[in-house]
């Protein structure tokens, strides 16, 4: 409904002279901690690598060339599409998507449960959800590895109750990485959905039931569309960091589960690194994320303009 709300009056209150100086700290923060690092990364992605790390200030497209094109072992063959990194990207997207889905399947009922408790109990439950996050992510990921390794507590107890005879090879699998991502980012799914469900007017569910909708249909037609903003926020908050994660894939995965985060991480370590290539990979990852977000924002705007 464009044009329904009148445009706010511009500076009608006479505070205009104060607005600029008061906004300065905000702009400074955004400039120093957001724009500057991204620009730095963009510039680095076009520089030439130095062999012991670092860069030489020579403009080149070599990093992007290396990412997308295969010119043979000695660089003299006609270029073909290089699949190595695209495969890693695709795998990362897949892993992040699966992790997001698991977070959603577990997170929605959790958020629903918490939001439907009495107010005092809600605070306790939310606190419990966030408690693991008081521990460093590295430590938590290592602990998870310890839990699921071949002679770890999970396999031992499953074998002792006779459910399995041989330990499940969990470490170094996709499943382990997804489990790690799920464990790392679940609260980012729970909290925004909780906020949306808490505001949900349960009279709407009664109204739907009154109008002959079953519980399932009520969930699909009324509850999910109304709390959708919370679900979408949760999915973005889980998907984006999962895509660039490197701790969980590094510690829980193996060579077959190599993800973008680890690829970038590797480029900035020790003398084997390649800073321009790492920066280029990071730029490509960021572009990808931005495209996904823009498609979503466009779809959302269309839905509202209906």
């Amino acid at each position, binding site marked *: 409904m464009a044009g329904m709300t009148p445009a706010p009056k511009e500076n009608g209150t006479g505070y205009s002279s104060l607005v600029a100086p008061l906004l300065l700290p905000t702009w400074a923060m955004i400039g120093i901690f957001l724009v500057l690092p991204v620009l730095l990364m963009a510039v680095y992605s076009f520089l030439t690598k130095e062999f012991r790390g670092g860069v030489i200030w020579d403009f080149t497209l070599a990093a992007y060339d290396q990412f997308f094109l295969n010119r043979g072992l000695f660089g003299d063959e006609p270029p073909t599409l290089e699949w190595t990194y695209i495969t890693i990207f695709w795998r990362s997207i897949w892993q992040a998507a699966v992790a997001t889905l698991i977070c959603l399947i577990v997170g929605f009922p959790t958020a629903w449960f918490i939001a439907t408790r009495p107010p005092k109990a809600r605070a306790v439950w939310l606190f419990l959800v966030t408690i693991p996050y008081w521990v460093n992510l590295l430590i938590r990921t290592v602990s998870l590895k310890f839990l699921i390794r071949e002679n770890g507590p999970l396999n031992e107890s499953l074998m002792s109750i006779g459910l399995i005879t041989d330990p499940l090879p969990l470490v170094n699998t996709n499943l382990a990485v997804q489990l790690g991502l799920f464990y790392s980012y679940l609260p980012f799914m729970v909290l925004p959905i909780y906020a949306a469900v808490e505001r949900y*007017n349960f009279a709407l569910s*009664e109204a*739907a*039931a*009154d109008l*002959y909708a079953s519980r399932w249909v009520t969930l699909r037609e*009324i509850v999910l569309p109304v709390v959708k903003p919370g679900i979408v926020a949760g999915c973005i908050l889980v998907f984006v960091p999962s895509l660039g994660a490197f701790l969980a894939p590094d510690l829980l995965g193996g060579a077959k589960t190599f993800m973008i985060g680890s690829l970038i991480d590797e480029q900035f370590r020790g003398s084997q690194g390649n800073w321009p290539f790492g920066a280029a990979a990071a730029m490509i990852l960021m572009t990808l994320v931005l495209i996904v977000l823009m498609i979503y924002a466009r779809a959302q705007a269309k839905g509202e303009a209906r």
Partner: protein
Amino acid sequence: MSTAIDIRSVVKRYGTATALHGVSLSISDNEFFTLLGPSGCGKTTLLRCIAGFEDVTEGEIRLFGQDIAALEPNHRPVNTVFQQYALFPHMTVLENVAFGLKMKGMGLSDRNARAGRMLEMVHLSAFADRLPAQLSGGQQQRVALARALAPEPKVLLLDEPLSALDLKLRQAMRVELKTLQEQTGITFIFVTHDQEEALTMSDRIAVMSQGRVQQIGTARDIYEAPVNRFVADFIGETNLLEVVVDRVEGDSARVILPGGHAITCAAAGNGPGKHHISIRPERLSLAATGDLTATVERIVYLGTDLQLLTRLTTGEEFHVRLQNSARTELPAPGSTVALHLEEGAARLLAD
């Protein structure tokens, strides 16, 4: 007329608290029936039991003879207009109204046509494509009404649907609701705490208090012949006086008024002793000699009426309402007047 809803000794408990103490009432088909009472009297709980949002602890509710205890709300052929409307915020007005029809399996074009007709009935055709948030309170209220009426329920439940509207709109909606009920022939069960709403719209009213039905009757019955102090006091303005019942003979009782004058009124099923009577302020007139004697303390000008705030010689406050006419000769404040009770003005109350 057949019975639409038969409520038999319904008890509703929440833990140790009891919201309904054995409520029984039966509502006829095509009736505009109102549950009236102060907040917390159990009227909304009873409505929610009929809709199926609450289970009854004891007793049963029959809908056209069928016990509906086992039916989930989505299987009961009743629809509700919610107090805060509960319109689906992500659907247009038309989609809201068509929702019940969609759930009943009606095809898209049929249900949109029907929903369109419902919107016409509540004068909102021009707003079919709007979202609920873009409507005023009164318009949302009418959408809620159209949505609940669209599936042609056997019984429509209305939970204080007018309480969120301003006075002018409320008065207009009363007329509209009554007309709709007569047009559609659907049984309306209307919950309100507003006695004026109840008196103006209802065929019959059940006055409720503390989880019990106090009295069931037409507006006139309840106003003119309240059975107990709660009903007399809750409906309209009244004077409650403690009196002594001298003797009871069949249908009539001899009552000694404060000041010693004796009158005869209809018996209320209680024996001789101290009881209460209710006297409506407008059923009194000034006279040379009367049944009660009082001192005028203040006179309040109300436009169509004049209200005399008086005190009986025995000390009780007593209100008198006189029609404002040229003939009315007003006593001066401080003067003593004799009050004459109209025939049948004094109602002996059961408790």
